[in-house]
């Protein structure tokens, strides 16, 4: 039986400040609310949403850098949450993350060679000269020079630093790379290069990745499926083609309307988003999107819409359907 590479079930995360003897616990912040999806070998899955919708929380949960409040994560059929720290450390080799901020994500006092080679050392794979040889090769593959090994991260630009981050993740030959907005901090001219690089590397290294972005246009070209998130919930999940051809959720339509010069929508209806993303400490009742939705009905305020399959694995969470 083939199981999904990654399966996320009922994943929920509340952030709360724990109370102490003298201060009561503070309000819970809803970061992720009952998120479910599967990801299969060979596909590139994108997760798109405005800031504060829980994208980064999801990335950190999948790589188990934080613990969920509820729910399960199955990676290659293994329940990650139930693993003890030792087992988890071993599996991390197959499960890597690339952070958004290329400046904050590299240790300031280590040379690039040590940074990139550290994974090999941690997992006891290679040491010394053999390690350095591999580091050199990976650096070459991400477009850096062997001579860069002896330089410090501060000497590199944002784009180059993101290349170092990619090299550090790939040297372990992971099966899944979670890229948390890897290009959003970069100049437009560099963005394309990094995305192209990740595409090329995907062919060579045969890894799969989850690409997190706040920008639909970035993900359109290379992702197989797209998840649209709003305030901690998945509102729509479809193949990229379906999503752009026939977006269903009003929020998705608004996001696509916001993309300039989209032929497909030029003559169709335009959806302009009004208002702001509500405070996650006090999310709206029912459908989280209802205060900003022009089609809002009574039921939207009362009941939470769950994901419904509209055919061809096009899932949408909206009471209109």
């Amino acid at each position, binding site marked *: 039986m083939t199981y999904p590479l990654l399966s996320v079930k009922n994943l929920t995360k509340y952030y709360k400040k724990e109370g102490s003897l003298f201060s009561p616990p503070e309000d819970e912040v809803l970061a992720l609310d009952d998120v479910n999806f599967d990801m299969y070998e060979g596909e590139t899955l994108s997760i798109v949403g405005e800031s504060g919708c829980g994208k980064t929380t999801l990335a950190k949960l999948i790589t188990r850098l934080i613990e969920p409040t509820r729910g399960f994560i199955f990676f290659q059929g293994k329940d990650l949450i139930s693993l003890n720290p030792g087992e988890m*450390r071993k599996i991390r080799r197959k499960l890597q993350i690339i952070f958004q901020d290329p400046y904050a*994500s590299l*240790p300031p006092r280590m040379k690039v060679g040590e940074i990139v080679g550290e994974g090999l050392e941690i997992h006891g794979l290679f040491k010394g000269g053999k390690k350095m040889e591999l580091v050199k090769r990976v650096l070459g593959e991400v477009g850096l020079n062997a001579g860069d090994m002896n330089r410090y991260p501060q000497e590199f630009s944002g784009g180059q630093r993101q290349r170092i981050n990619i090299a550090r993740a790939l040297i372990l030959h992971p099966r899944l790379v979670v890229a948390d907005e890897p290009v959003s901090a970069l100049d437009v001219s560099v963005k394309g290069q990094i995305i192209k690089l990740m595409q090329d590397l995907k062919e060579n290294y045969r890894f799969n990745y989850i690409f997190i972005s706040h920008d639909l246009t970035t993900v359109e070209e290379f992702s197989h499926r797209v998840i649209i998130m709003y305030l901690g919930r998945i509102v729509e999940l479809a193949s990229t083609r379906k999503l752009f051809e026939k977006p269903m959720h009003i929020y998705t339509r608004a996001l696509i309307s916001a993309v300039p010069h989209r032929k497909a929508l030029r003559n169709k209806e335009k959806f302009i988003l009004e208002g702001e993303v509500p405070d996650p400490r006090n999310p709206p009742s029912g459908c989280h999107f209802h205060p900003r939705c022009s089609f809002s009905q009574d039921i939207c305020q009362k009941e939470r819409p769950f994901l419904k399959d509209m055919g061809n694995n096009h899932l949408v969470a909206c009471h209109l359907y």
Partner: protein
Amino acid sequence: MILGKRVQKNKIFIFSLVIITGLFLMALFAPHLVSHDPLKTETENWLTPPGPDNWFGTDRLGRDIYSRVVFGSRISLSIGFISAAIMIFTGTLLGALAGYYGGIVDNLIMRLTDIIIVFPVLFLIITLISLFDSGFIHIILIIGFTGWPVVARLVRAEFMSLRERDFVQAIRALGASDLRIITRHILPNALDPIVVAATLSVPAAILAEAGLSFLGLGIPAPVPTWGNILREAHGYFRQAWWYAAFPGAFIFVTVMAFNLLGESLKDLLDS
């Protein structure tokens, strides 16, 4: 390197370093620097004012104060350094554990530091000394183990903020063990404030020893320490100003030099 240039420019840093080096050499070569046996009493020469034979004068038993002050530096400096080392080691270890693991570990360690901090240090030390009697080793241990909470709080705060930084999370995502993360990634980046704290712990320990000796709870009598001499001088301030002035000046200069060194190090490492 740029740091080297900034060090050269920082006059206070150089000045305090010169003084500390001088004090060190004095303690190291003490036997070669004195003309009198610091323990030898010449009662007929008691309370002689400073002169060519006794540079700092003599004490109530006719001992040469200069020799006693020079030998006293050995005790004061070694107590200062060893106690500071204990403070830094204990404080860093416990602060790192509290800051990195948080939760119940943090709570236990921080409540322990709170307990030690709420006691006035001197009373705590006095209580401990009355329990364990005052030898060199005991004094060092007691000063060291009452001084670490300040360091622990500092290190904890540093660890708490570094733990959440992306580059530490990235190492965790690579599969590094806690030990590796703490020692290879967080500690090296927390070193600056620890170095400053170490420098400032030395004068604190020296002052604690001087205070204890002045109260008669420090190193027992014939051995000269700066605090001991001050204690003996008590009662002779009017007749013999030199009796208290010289050991007092050495304590002052030493503590000031270490404090200046700590402050200038902070400036150097911050910028």
